[in-house]
């Protein structure tokens, strides 16, 4: 089917469909009318508690302000000096491999400390 034939076919189909819609019986039309009336009535009775448009940005603003206040309070009540590492030097000690080895040879250093103490007594 070429394009002209296809257009002719579609035009004929549309005409036939239109004719069938225009030939609906009175009973069906009456029921469609009732359905439409109910829908339009429902549209007119939209709930009065529906959120006004201006309330949405106001609510968003209030939520943001609340988050900022809570964050500030938490920040002020939890100062930096509570942190385990407060200076760059301490940070280096913590992450340094060499110093981690010291922690694993704790027994050796404990023995060394005892030896030093004994030598001092003698």
């Amino acid at each position, binding site marked *: 089917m070429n394009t002209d034939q296809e257009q002719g076919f579609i035009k004929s189909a549309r005409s036939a469909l239109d004719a069938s819609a225009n030939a*609906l019986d009175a009973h069906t039309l009456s029921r469609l009318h009732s359905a439409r009336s*109910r829908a339009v009535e429902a*549209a007119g009775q939209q709930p009065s508690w529906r959120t006004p448009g201006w309330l949405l940005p106001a609510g968003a603003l209030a939520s943001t302000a609340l988050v900022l206040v809570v964050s500030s309070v938490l920040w002020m009540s939890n100062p930096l000096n509570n942190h385990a590492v407060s200076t760059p030097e301490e940070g280096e000690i913590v992450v340094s491999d060499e110093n981690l080895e010291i922690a694993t040879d704790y027994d050796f250093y404990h023995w060394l400390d005892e030896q030093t103490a004994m030598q001092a007594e003698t």
Partner: protein
Amino acid sequence: MWAAARVLSSTLDKREEGTLDSTQALDRFLAGVERRAFRMAQLATGNVEDALDLVQEAMLKLAQHYGRRNEQEWGPLFHRILQSRIRDWYRRSRVRNRWRVWLGGEEGEEDPLHNLADTDAPGPAQLLAGQRAMGALEQALQKLPLRQQQAFLLRTWEGFDVAATAHAMGCSEGSVKTHYSRAVHTLRVLLEGHQP
């Protein structure tokens, strides 16, 4: 104080007028689409009662949820709701049919006589000219898979473009093109079968 009351009263009057205008516009819109919507639902379901229910549900949902939207949006929204309702109906009816078959009933088989070509009938163009044409077209449309039927009716009858049809059907534009092309091809074959 009186001036403020007058302003408030005037605002409320204007709001009521706006609601009335909107309600009238909605009524006009629904009156314009209801017949085609009913026929689409009837072609999909093959049943007057189910078709009326589906159209009524679509009208109600449009009015309740989208009645305040711009009038230009009502067409695609209404058809999106309707087509979605038709798809739900279709799924439910398939499940029902499976149960019926499983319980020993018979699946709704088509009358094989419907598929026989009428060798005395004219070609497609003439066939679609009268009441007999609608009968043939209706039978052919009902033989299409639901998605092809929806794509064909929305594109051909509602005059939707590919994008609007995709929105109404809840699928991609590529799918619409495929469904529509297959629908036209199948309808052509089915209706040409009546040619001498």
